[in-house]
């Protein structure tokens, strides 16, 4: 970007890229005619969305009772999946904004896909608060607007915080995403013809890449990044407060905000790996998504995994150390109670499996990383399931203890949400350059005819 300094040549992450316009050629070819595989997957996703629609329809017509939810477990798969998707969203912003501010060298080629993932993940997460309420036709009451009842929402409720946090997060990350794509859309426009040319012409807002455009673009981008960084932390903190501000043993913990943020990045990075590995293969972008990148992401995974696992342990420790009967019972039930299996899946997938990432060979083996990332995704979904369900089923009032079994409808909607996400992501891979063309050019050698001008010497030893 405008202020991003060049990397010293030694650390160039794309050794086999020399030509600027080669980047355009390589990347823009991904926008070509989709193959059969793509169409099949799209069809699959549309089918999944259909399932989601039907399940939701049944639930609305008959009642929320078609779920397995019951007293005392008032929240289940829906909220679990909601938190899961919000978590997924986070790594996108992390990679695009935070790594940008920290000038991480390996960011450029993956952040576009990660950001797209963010936007679509939030779109998916946004469905679930609507799905899980009993009277969705009144859900708009959570939005503060002047109405004929003189009533406002209750801003003390974390659910209203959620509304604000998630909508803000969506707006900002979508804006951020779009802003970053504008120059590349212009590039696509210049390469394309026919309908696509018209389309890109419109959505690239007539970008020409003049000095003035670049100048302000750079500033705007860096400020958006600066805003998005605290936002991403706040959003998952707010989500964690849905639980932490309650008095449910197993929810009411001060560690939740950082713990959730770390978990979010953990799952998000894993999801980035899961998504980019196929893209890399299908579009032949090995030159762009190099093993160096995956190594870096794996390290990030490892770090966050350790944070998360530490959070697990400290939760159990505090439960024991507090000496508080109810708290202890809740966590004992978590480990050895009715839902022991979920807990152990969580511990294994999020705590033990990532230990393999200590080994360089694993970090540099794409298939291994892919497999591990799948494990992490599963583990993180179960983490939320464990937090929500096991805590609720074993609360203060022993006589009111009960268990919850998800119903087919819930499962259908949960699976459907993945289809909904996949649908958008597939469209993305065909409409928008999956690698940031302009930004990538910053990290490949600048074309120089002679020696650099004297006053530009500070710009790293080019030439």
């Amino acid at each position, binding site marked *: 970007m405008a202020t991003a300094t060049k990397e010293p040549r030694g650390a160039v992450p794309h050794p086999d890229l020399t030509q600027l316009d080669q980047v355009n050629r390589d990347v823009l070819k991904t926008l070509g005619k989709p193959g059969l595989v793509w169409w099949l997957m799209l069809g699959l996703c549309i089918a999944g969305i259909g399932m989601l629609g039907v399940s939701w329809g049944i639930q609305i017509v*008959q*009642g*929320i*009772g078609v779920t*397995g*939810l*019951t*007293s*005392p477990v*008032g*929240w289940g798969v829906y909220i679990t999946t909601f938190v899961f998707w919000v978590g997924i969203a986070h790594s996108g912003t992390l990679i695009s904004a935070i790594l940008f501010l920290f000038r991480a060298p390996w960011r450029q080629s993956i952040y576009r896909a990660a950001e797209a993932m963010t936007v679509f993940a939030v779109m998916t997460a946004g469905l679930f608060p609507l799905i*899980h*309420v*009993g*009277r969705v036709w*009144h*859900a708009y*009451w*959570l939005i503060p607007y002047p109405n004929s009842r003189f*009533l406002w*929402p*209750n801003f*003390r*409720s*974390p*659910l*209203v915080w959620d*509304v604000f946090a998630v909508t803000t997060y969506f707006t900002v990350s979508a804006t951020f995403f779009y802003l970053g794509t504008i120059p590349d859309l212009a590039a696509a426009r210049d390469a394309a013809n026919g309908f696509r040319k018209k389309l890109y012409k419109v959505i690239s807002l007539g970008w020409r890449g003049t000095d003035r455009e670049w100048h302000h673009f750079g500033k705007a981008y860096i400020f958006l990044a600066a805003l998005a960084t605290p936002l991403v932390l706040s959003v998952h903190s707010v989500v964690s407060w849905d639980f932490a*501000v*309650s*008095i*449910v043993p197993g929810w009411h913990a001060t560690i939740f905000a950082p713990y959730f943020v770390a978990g979010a990045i953990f799952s998000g990075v894993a999801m980035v790996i899961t998504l980019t590995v196929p893209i890399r293969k299908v579009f032949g972008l090995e030159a762009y998504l190099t093993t160096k990148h995956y190594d870096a992401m794996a390290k990030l995974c490892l770090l966050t995994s350790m944070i998360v696992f530490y959070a697990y342990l400290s939760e159990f420790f505090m439960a024991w150390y507090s000496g508080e*009967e*109810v708290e202890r*019972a809740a966590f004992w039930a978590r480990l050895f109670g009715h839902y022991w299996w979920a807990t152990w899946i969580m511990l294994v997938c999020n705590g033990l499996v990532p230990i393999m990432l200590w080994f360089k060979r694993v970090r540099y083996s794409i298939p291994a990383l892919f497999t591990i990332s799948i494990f992490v995704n599963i583990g993180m979904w179960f983490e939320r399931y464990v937090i929500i369900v096991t805590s*609720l089923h074993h*609360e*203060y*009032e*022993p*006589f*009111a*203890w*009960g*268990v919850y079994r998800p119903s087919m409808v819930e499962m259908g909607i949960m699976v459907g949400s993945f289809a909904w996400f996949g649908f958008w992501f597939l469209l993305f891979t065909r409409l928008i350059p999956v690698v940031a063309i302009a930004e990538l050019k910053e990290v490949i050698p600048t074309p120089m005819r002679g020696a650099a001008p004297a006053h530009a010497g500070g710009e790293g030893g080019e030439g």
Partner: protein
Amino acid sequence: MSDGLKRREFLKVLGVSGAGAGMVGCSTESVEKLMPYVVPPEEITPGVATWYASVCGECEAGCGMWVRTREGRVVKVEGNPDHPVSGGALCSRGHSSVQGLYNPDRFTGPMARQNGELQPISWDEAEQRLADGLAAAGQHLTLTGFAGPSMMTLMESFARATGGGVVRFDPLADAPLREAGRIAFGRNVVPWYDIEEAEMLVSFGADFLESWLSPVRDARAFSRMSGVDERGSKGRFVFVGSRLSLTGQNADEWLPIQPGSESLVALAMANVISGAGAGAGPYRDIVNAYTPENVSEATGIPAENIRELAIQFAEGPSLALGPGVAGQHRNATAANLAVAVLNSVAGNVGRTLHYSAPQLNAPAFGYSGVERVMQLIGQGVVGAVMIHGSNPIYALPASSGFRAAFESVPFKVSFASSPDETTALCDLVLPDRHFLESWGDSAVRPGSWAIQQPAMRPVPHFDTRQTGDVLLSVDSLMGQDLGAATFHDHLQSRWQTVAASTGTADFEVFWQEALKSGVVELGGSQTGVAEQLRQPDRALVFDPPDFDGPGDLHLMVYPSSRFGHGSQNTNRPWLLELPDPVSKITWHSWVEMHPDRAAAMGLRNGDMVILSTDNGSVELPVWTYPGIRENVVAVPMGGGHEGAGRFSDGNGVNPLDLLPAESEALSGGLVHFATKVTVTPTGERRALATISGSDVQSNRPITPAVALSALTAEADHAEEEDGNGPLQELQGVGGFVPVETEGRPQDFPLEGAQHGEYGDPETPRWAMTIDLDKCTGCSACVTACQSENNVAWVGESQVTMGRDMGWIRLERYYEAVDASHAGPLDVRFMPMICQHCGNAPCEPVCPVYATYHTPDGINTQVYNRCVGTRYCLNNCPYKVRVYNWYTYTDEEPVREGLGHAPEPMNWAFNPDVTVRENGIMEKCSFCIHRIRGAQDRAAVEGSVIQDGEIIPACQQSCPAEAIVFGNIRDTRSRVAQSVESARVYRVLDELINTQPAVSYLKKVTFHDVESGEH
């Protein structure tokens, strides 16, 4: 809510009650019709409730009730405070009578069997057929359950006039008790028990709190006797029996005796008290023979326990209650006699029980009567049988062969108002009116009479006639004359004599007074007569009877506390879904087994087993229960109906099929406890439809108790127990400003909340205290609340999932789970309702203010604002919020087997309370509609609401008088005074600083409570 007509259904009833039937169903029309009266009844004002005094017809106890009607439509029944039996309270069965009245499965009119099917016919034709049938039959018999005195006399005189006989039959007859009374004192009656007067109570298996004699009155008397008073004295209650019924769970001590050995314990006690029989008069030798040492082996009770018990028993005014029907075995009469002897030697006769003032309403006639009927049928002399107020096909053991005998009768008539197993065999059905629609009377004891009057015009869906009227018109059709045109005349003519006995000149005045108050006390039943024991005139065997049948497990078939003998009135969702007070299981039947025994057989809760005796076999799930002897299994009556209605059919099994059809030799009562049974696991499992998540408190101060000895000590350091001082820091401005309050209920609103309407110190704070030392766990409050607040029933599948909707969850914890041997047994009852916390965790998490705190301190729920996020449910530590997972209140169920309110059941909706729909959270509202109603009245009349003027439904119906409600800001109010008790505590308050408005008074135990708290 979706349907505005549910709550305001009455608009059509206006038309109905104003101008007869016809306007039903306009609720389905798009344009709503207003139906004014033609001629308005003086006493009815639209929107204002009208009350009628009447008598409950659910069981023989005959509780006086007040019937609440709105616009000529019964919406609720409550106890009549002036009545000697109910004393203002009512049991669940009584409350559910409303669902009997509006039961959609009632006969829509008279029916006659044509080519195998019951076809509707006209009343004239029906009565003509009956007349002809009886004329043709020659001799006919009337088999009747209990009925009011006037109805009995009418039936008898009708039988006399038309050449027939009347046989009374009740599956739960107390024949052995009466016979024992005759042998002992020459009085063939059920004595009047003054439990209140006793300080030491011993029940030999008599379930007087649930199914025996008069549960509501006895529960009140018991709670007064056993509840600790301000002087710190408390009556002691010991239960002697093989299984702990609900009554037994209320005992301070349990002697789990060998099946059938009550007489031995009773005689051994008598032996100790009477000095080896010296004081036992004619029973000297018998009593002498049974020393505690002799019997301890046969009873399984150590001698010293019996001795100790006997000494306590001899001390003050005490009372022993004879074996109930549950333990009615082959030597039942002897057992009752033994208890009578015990009472006699302890000097209780004439002090705490009175043969001179017997209970007229106790069920009397046992199985022997039925045996005679079958005999006569067998001889072919009976041409017609009329069934009234009973369901013998269900209520008699299959082995009795009554079905075959009954089928062989040429002309079978039933007066049942709704179909059951017996009407399925009848040739003619003349549906009687529900007791809320009909005239009648009851005599509780000599000199105390009550009138049963119709509280509404007959429900227009059902073309019924009161059997009394039918008999009279049939009688005249047969050319006879019983001196009355209608049953109402007959009733009045009988009451003329009653009036005369009081010496009132103007009968009209007397009659009106009687109707208003609902009860007439003539006095004249003299008590305090100490009868002397007489020489027994019959051979008696006091030893435990032999139990025939295979296996080594004694089968106990006991009356359900929800259904009684359960042959009638089971088709009621409120009762079916009411958790059984002991097992907390709804809808289906179960077999109770001791955990050790079950473990030995590898059985767990919910494992299906087959019980089989020589007489039959049934399949049902196991429920392990520490309150039962290892060699006994127990099954409740009332399940397994066929053709008794859409709700009750197919729920559970009818255990009577396992019993031998045998009457006790001396008295002729049916034996319920006579056979052994084999238990065969089927390998199947089923999820129990229970509301119990756990039977133990897991070291949480949910229901702490205090030992009687420690009670006074506790009073001293009561102050420091109000221990959430440090927690105060946690509230205020989301956690910043400490609030100067001890967090007592009366401290609401909190300092931080002094805004707008909340600042006014004049606003009341509504609060409640529940005395757990009095609560007997009878669950009457649950049904009362359900009836008052339009609480939906949800169906078996939903309860199994944990979605029951009761606003009161009557929790039952075992403190000393090892109750299988003698010693302190501690069952704790906890009516858990919304605690209306000052710091309600549910409130701040609601995104739309659907739940919040009213200025008068109620944690209220605004149904129509609720979006249904269920966050409040998650965050409620007491889990008292219930959620409408489906719409359970439509006329059609959303799904098969879900709760719904078919016509005319939806007439029972309380117009003052919103009917909820799918996706809405609800919970106890402190009966806020009653509060607002009182405030409206007060505002209009310019009066001030007095303490006790507002009574929520639960308090109103509590037989144990355990609940007190009122404005705790008013220091003179009962509730404000009750929280001054040393026993007061608030659930989980010290743990999470919720500061509830509901306070509980700790249960008081005789044994020490370990670790002080629980």
